[in-house]
């Protein structure tokens, strides 16, 4: 019994370690701890250490995001170009900033450089976030919504050809499906462009500037999922 418990414990530990090792590889963000609070009294060495960590986190995250977004087939070519341009510029900026902070010779200069991550660059809060909102929106406008519209059109044709199959429940589901598709279309209209138009300066002026695009993308995804559920229920009834 004791031996079994030992084996179980070892197994659980191995699983936990495997998961712990896997999560960082999948995540786009590596900063699990908040950056240190630095101020005018911080030492040059402390600022340089924090600068090295925070820029390295962003470089890792950007490389991961660039790879993911480059591989996305649902992004429009123009949005992909805009996103990759922004993220690659951020990547170059972080590389340069990392080197500059390491080479700074005064705490004041190093602190100014360090703070530029949170004023000039905004890699996480703007660049990466807006890119993923746009990717989500493009996935809906380019694929999910058109395919749902196609399904709804075919369902309507089947019902028109076979009126005997029409029931109030099916009619209601089809009406709901069409309403959800229409709502998703409205919410994603211009969404990617709106998200990609946000700049670090705009975010500095209004920290909620990406909240509306984020909420619209979220609501549109809920709509397209609900429409797909309606479609599947109707399809099951028609089979």
């Amino acid at each position, binding site marked *: 019994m004791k031996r079994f418990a030992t084996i179980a414990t070892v197994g659980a530990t191995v699983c936990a370690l495997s998961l712990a090792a896997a999560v960082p590889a999948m995540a786009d963000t590596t900063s699990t701890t908040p*950056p240190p609070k630095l101020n005018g009294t911080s030492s040059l060495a402390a600022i340089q250490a924090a600068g090295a960590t925070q820029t390295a986190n962003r470089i890792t995250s950007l490389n991961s995001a660039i790879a993911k977004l480059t591989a996305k087939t649902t992004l429009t070519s123009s949005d992909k170009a805009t996103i990759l341009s922004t993220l690659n510029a951020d990547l170059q900026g972080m590389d340069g900033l990392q080197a500059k902070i390491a080479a700074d010779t005064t705490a004041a200069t190093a602190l100014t450089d360090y703070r530029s991550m949170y004023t000039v660059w905004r890699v996480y809060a703007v660049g990466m976030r807006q890119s993923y909102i746009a990717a989500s929106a493009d996935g809906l406008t*380019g694929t999910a919504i058109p395919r749902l519209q196609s399904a709804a059109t075919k369902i309507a044709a089947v019902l028109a050809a076979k009126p005997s199959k029409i029931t109030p429940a099916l009619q209601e589901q089809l009406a709901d499906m069409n309403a959800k598709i229409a709502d998703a279309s409205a919410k994603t209209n211009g969404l990617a462009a709106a998200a990609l138009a946000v700049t670090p300066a705009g975010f500095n002026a209004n920290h909620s500037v990406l909240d509306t695009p984020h909420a619209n993308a979220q609501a549109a995804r809920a709509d397209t999922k609900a429409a797909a559920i309606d479609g599947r229920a109707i399809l099951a009834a028609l089979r």
Partner: protein
Amino acid sequence: MTVRRSARVVLLAPVAVLAASLILTGCSSLGTTSTAAVTTTSGASSTATAAPVTSSPSAAADASTLNGIAADLNAADAANNEADASATSGDQAAASSDGP
């Protein structure tokens, strides 16, 4: 006389048998009927086979349409899942501290 009588029997017997056969079997009309019956049977059989053939394209069209709907829904689901994955990555980025 015996010879003549025997010859008559020899000649008439096959004729009588043939005639009897024709009468009993009704050869020509039976053959016609039989052929007609075969034709009819064949026709009925052909019609029975044709019915599924006639409805099969319709059933196939229905199945094709329903499969098309299923394919559309599968593609929509895949796009929804991908949009979810993008949203999760975006939320992770937003949750990462970008400082004050």
